[in-house]
């Protein structure tokens, strides 16, 4: 029998197989709240979305890891304070009192906060770090708008770092920040570090400055850590100030 056909066995080249990448549409993130270890009353930021997208419920954002019974979350939603406490290891809606009015926080919608919002985490014994979990927002830059106040009636706006990275205060794009406005960032000893908007003593355009004895006002190189919130205090101007991160 004459056989002309050749039966060839050869190996598969790795490059011969096309493999389509299968990867989730969304990216999740864990953020250790800077300064959470050792501070009982901490301003936190909402830098993440809910898993699957949309505003995250603060009770999903703040993990109960390292927290204790009766530790609390407080959020100001539309001018009203809502609160949640840990009961049985999970966040449970609590009641806030406003004068003689009791406000319950049972509605999940009240717990959903947009990226850039600030809130409070109150802990009894903050011996370990606290964490945030959620989905990394897909949108690019985030602009936060602050309330507009006057010298007689300053306007306090609680905001937070809306990103997953530390941001230099003077690296953020500020618009309509009035000279004399202040920002108060939680410090390491339970005290806020205040920065004022003005030209440095050495001259130059307006920056966020810190007063240093002997040097006058010095542009700060401080950063807002991921997961951290702070106060913006408006003392004047005609247009609401904004921060683009």
């Amino acid at each position, binding site marked *: *029998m*004459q*056989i*002309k*056909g*050749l*039966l*060839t*066995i*050869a*190996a*598969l*080249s*790795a490059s*011969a*197989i*096309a*493999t*389509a*990448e*299968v*990867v*989730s*549409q*969304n*990216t*999740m*993130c*864990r*953020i*250790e709240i800077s300064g959470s270890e050792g501070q009982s009353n901490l301003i936190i930021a909402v830098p993440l979305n809910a*898993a*699957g997208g949309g505003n995250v419920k603060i009770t999903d954002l703040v*993990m*109960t*890891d390292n927290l204790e019974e009766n530790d609390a979350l407080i959020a100001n939603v539309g001018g009203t304070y809502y609160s949640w406490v840990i009961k049985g290891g999970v966040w449970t809606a609590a009641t806030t009192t406003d004068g003689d009015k009791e406000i319950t926080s049972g509605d999940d919608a009240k717990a959903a906060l947009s990226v850039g919002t600030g809130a409070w985490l109150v802990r009894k014994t903050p011996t370990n770090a606290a*964490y945030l*979990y*959620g*989905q*990394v927002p897909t949108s690019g830059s985030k602009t936060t708008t602050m309330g507009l106040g006057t010298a007689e009636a300053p306007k306090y706006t609680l905001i937070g770092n809306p990103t*997953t990275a530390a941001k230099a205060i003077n690296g953020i794009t500020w618009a309509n920040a009035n000279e004399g406005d202040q920002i108060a960032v939680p410090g390491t000893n339970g005290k806020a570090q205040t920065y004022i908007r003005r030209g440095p003593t050495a001259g130059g355009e307006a920056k966020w400055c810190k007063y240093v004895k002997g040097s006058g006002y010095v542009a700060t190189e401080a950063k807002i850590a991921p997961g951290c919130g702070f106060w913006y205090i408006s003392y004047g101007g005609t247009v609401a100030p904004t921060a683009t991160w």
Partner: protein
Amino acid sequence: MKKLALMLTAVFASIAALAVPGYVIFSSEGPDQYADGTTVLDGEVYALVWTANETFGGLTATGEPVVAGDKVIGMAATAKDGRCTPVVYMLTGDNEVVGGNFFVYLLDTRVKTVAADGTVVTNVAGLNGDGKLTAVNAVQSIAEPGIATSTVAAAGTVNGAGSVATAAPVDAPMPRITAIEVVGAKVVVTVVDTLPCLQYGITAGKTPSVLDQKDLIDGLNGVAGGEIKLVIDDPAENRFFKVIRK
């Protein structure tokens, strides 16, 4: 390097200018191994494929040829005691071929699911009752230099190519994380839009753009129309993570 020997005998009843009726017999001496270095499990599938080209275009995760014109001559769940027991494939009917090249592969059809008690169970899916595959994670060449050939067929140069992941179906959806919760030192990630033929794992990294820790978990097969829960240890400094196909 794994020690494999492939005995191949091809017998043809007519000259090659015509269709080539005949059959192919092959087996391996073993131990054959998966890409992770473990010995092939009993019931695992070997495949004989053919292509008119120099190289075979690969298989999808459901065992279909990636390239039009390539053929899967046959698949047999013949792994036993770490080797391929003798298999005979008839080259008739739809499997009649002229010229071209044959390749023999060990398929990795292990499916990982979660049992009622929460443990991960690994089973060889093998072949369904209809002779088709449920899931193929990777294909492993079992051909190596030194293959014995019959007097009627010549083996070409053979290189051990190792394992290659199968191609995901073209219409495979991108999985979506719908929930995340921390239970003790573990993070539980709920995932939807998965396929049973693919295994899913988690990759993590220090920044969203560099997710270079790709082996955080062993992976689980997807569920059609359902959800799976992937459990990882706390990712520590690798705080950004996504779900990927393993």
